[in-house]
């Protein structure tokens, strides 16, 4: 079955820069897989800065008198804690405690919220919202993310005003454009969202702001790799988010996302099940001895099955293939030596694989 695939609002600029004509689809959007050398794009967020088209991310607004009540039931953290302008990261679970989605939840107003995630879960959220008389609406905007140690300086150079703290956002009328600035990402950068019609202007201005800081355009491959190096598990690549309302897997614990659940939040969907689910495995980082990625491969500890890799890619910064993996707790200590079935050595390491670089201040 073919689905309608859309171009992002930045498409014409992306196409011009995509000299190798390397495209990939995600969430029904067409994106540049890489603009040139994948390795250089992958290293840029650790070295200087990179800009990526993130329009493909899924964003919905939740509005109505019952929004807070609904989100209290939906999310593993209590939205009552959020004041307007703030956001937090949380999960939402199936009735039986399986992870359905993860994202940043931002509060725009007393009865207005926004969810940003990497994978759509519209049916579930709309279905839940219907119980509470809340309106759910998907937003189509152009989004750009800038990551890297120079991101803060580029933010300043662009004229966005006072620095933005992590997990905060603000709407801004910036040199004639209505934009939303946020810092929801895991990579010490920031995001800018604009109306589709303003996309090309935003692109040009940000490129210009980033030029003195050696900012590179990064395609989807580089950004995916960045997520992996940061140790952030992503649906589709690393795990299959539950799509059955009564699914029991994956649990937040085997994905090591329990930090996104507040112990004192009692009302969220799937709580009882998630508390009583067995906690036998957790997520770790795996460094492979070699260049060849090994996604979704079994891992052996002393010949016994100890877990399974999730997503795996070659990291040019580390010059080796790396992977996220779920392994038994007994095999999860950093330094544990495991093997793949073909004999390749694998080592459990702390996450992130590489630390997020400090922003350059001076």
């Amino acid at each position, binding site marked *: 079955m073919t689905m309608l695939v859309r171009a992002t609002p930045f498409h014409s600029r992306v196409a011009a820069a995509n*000299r190798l004509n390397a495209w990939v689809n995600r969430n029904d959007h067409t994106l540049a897989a890489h603009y040139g050398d994948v390795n250089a794009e992958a290293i*840029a967020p650790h070295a200087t800065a990179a800009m990526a088209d993130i329009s493909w991310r899924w964003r919905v607004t939740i509005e109505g008198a019952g929004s807070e009540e609904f989100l209290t039931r939906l999310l593993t953290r209590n939205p009552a804690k959020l004041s307007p302008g703030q956001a937090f990261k949380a999960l939402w679970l199936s009735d039986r405690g399986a992870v359905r989605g993860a994202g940043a939840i931002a509060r725009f107003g007393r009865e207005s919220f926004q969810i940003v995630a990497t994978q759509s879960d519209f049916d579930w959220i709309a279905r839940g919202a219907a119980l509470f008389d809340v309106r759910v609406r998907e937003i189509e905007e152009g989004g750009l993310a800038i990551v890297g140690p120079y991101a803060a300086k580029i933010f300043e150079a662009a004229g966005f005003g006072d620095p933005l703290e992590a997990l905060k956002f603000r709407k801004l009328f910036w040199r004639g454009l209505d934009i939303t600035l946020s810092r929801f990402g895991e990579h010490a950068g920031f995001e800018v969202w604009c109306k589709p019609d303003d996309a090309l202007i935003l692109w040009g201005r940000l490129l210009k702001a980033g030029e003195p800081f*050696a900012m590179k355009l990064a395609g989807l491959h580089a950004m995916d790799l960045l997520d992996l190096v940061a140790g952030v598990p992503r649906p589709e690549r690393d795990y299959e988010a539950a799509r059955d309302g009564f699914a029991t897997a994956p649990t937040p614990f085997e994905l090591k996302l329990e930090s996104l659940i507040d112990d004192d939040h009692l009302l969220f969907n799937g709580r009882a099940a998630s508390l009583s689910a067995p906690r036998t495995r957790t997520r770790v980082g795996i460094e492979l001895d070699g260049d060849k990625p090994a996604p979704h491969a079994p891992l052996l500890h002393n010949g016994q099955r100890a877990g399974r890799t999730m997503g795996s890619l070659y990291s040019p910064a580390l010059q080796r293939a790396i992977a996220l993996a779920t392994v038994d707790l007994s095999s999860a200590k950093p330094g544990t030596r495991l093997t793949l079935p073909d004999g390749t050595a694998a080592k459990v390491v702390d996450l992130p694989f590489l630390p997020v670089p400090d922003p350059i201040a001076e």
Partner: protein
Amino acid sequence: MWDNRAERVTVRYDAAIIGAGANGLAAAATLGRAGLKVIVLDRATVCGGRAITREFDPGFRASPFADELAPVPAEIFRDLDLARHGAILVPMPSSLALWPDRRHEVLHWSASAAFSRLRTVVRSREKEIRARALADAAHAIERRWFASAPEPTLWPSEDWSDLSLISFAGDWHLGEDARAHILAAALTGRVADPFATGSALHLLAGHGGGMPIGGLATFGGALEAAARAAGAEISLGLEVADIHLRGGRAIGLHLADGREIDALAVISTLDLRRTFFSLFAWKDIPKVAEQRVSRYRNAAGRARLLLALDRPPALDPDFAQGQIHIAPGAAALAKAHDAWRCNVVPDEPPLTLRLVSASDPRLAPVGKAVLTATLGCIPHTVFDGAWTNEKRTALRDRTLARIEMALPGVSASVLGSELIVPPDIEEQLGITDGDLDGGEIAPDQMFALRGFEDHPGGRTPIGGLYLGGVSPAFGTCAAGVAAARAIMADLT
């Protein structure tokens, strides 16, 4: 100081390493991880050898001797966990060749199919060579009492010993400009006659290891961190006087301050000539070493001009971050080589520019720039005497003029500069003649013939003494790691 010899402190180590450059630190890290007690000594006050970054003008920094090192073999990069210790290497995005008549040829590595293939070929040969070097080292030498020396097996790419760069470039379906571009890329900061057989070996001499963010000092720092994490001791500001021999075997070091260090094995990361001529008393140099060293040739040719600019030159962002080769061409290269051979500074030495601050804005203040110029075929000793200020200024001005022709407006924006010529390199790094390759790249000095024949893996005829200095084609750190592995193999 010399009188104060009341305490003759002798400390025992498993291995003592002379030189805390990339090779020395890598060797130390390798040996330390294997559980050996290691000490690294360097007369400089900082680690890194040539892997340093210097503020050559207030607020402006650059790596003085090179912007990039030869690629570190992936196996070593992984084993030493260098990425985690801070070594982030930015690959070279592009290469631009510019001619005086403004003709230019850009190659984006990923975009040009032919260049991609070429690069793949070179890379795969480099990999093979390193694998061989490391394997040879790990192979313990059996004490052969009666058997004759084994047949030496051919090294990978030894066939290039018979190939000239021109022939090599001609084998590829490329235009004349493209071929000139390849030559320039192969010979940046080097000395070679592209028509001579064996000049193709320069391709293997290590290009494109990536520019460490923060300059080469970050890379040196990562290696230092790796060595310390492995438990190695690092002693800086300490010059080694000589190697202590007993019964023809190296058993330790004498330091300049009178102290002694006992070691089961010694690695010297100094070049061959300096190892034997500065670390041994004349009468103590073994005959076989003396013969080897007398045959050994160094060919210093690199000079560097570091420029602090008030504003970045107008460059198309497409190639602002890569190398820019000025007027390359086989004929020009051959002419420059001729001049060099006569110890004359060429009129138009090979010139490669890199706007390093475009890749790494940390190197210059905001809005300003650092431009490095790498020259090749610059002689160590000019025919008519030493490198006087006058000669330096002349070279600097001539170079600036050429840069101006390629990038108009640069001269006017120069705020400060530093010129480094081979004698400076010799003095600052303790390298014979300032030859950053550690010896001429010639067929009779490559691969198995680089050190001592019949002594693979950095071993020498002197028991307990190993050579771990720069060896082209091995890549950064590989020679040191090879020597370390040889020690591990020989000690068990």
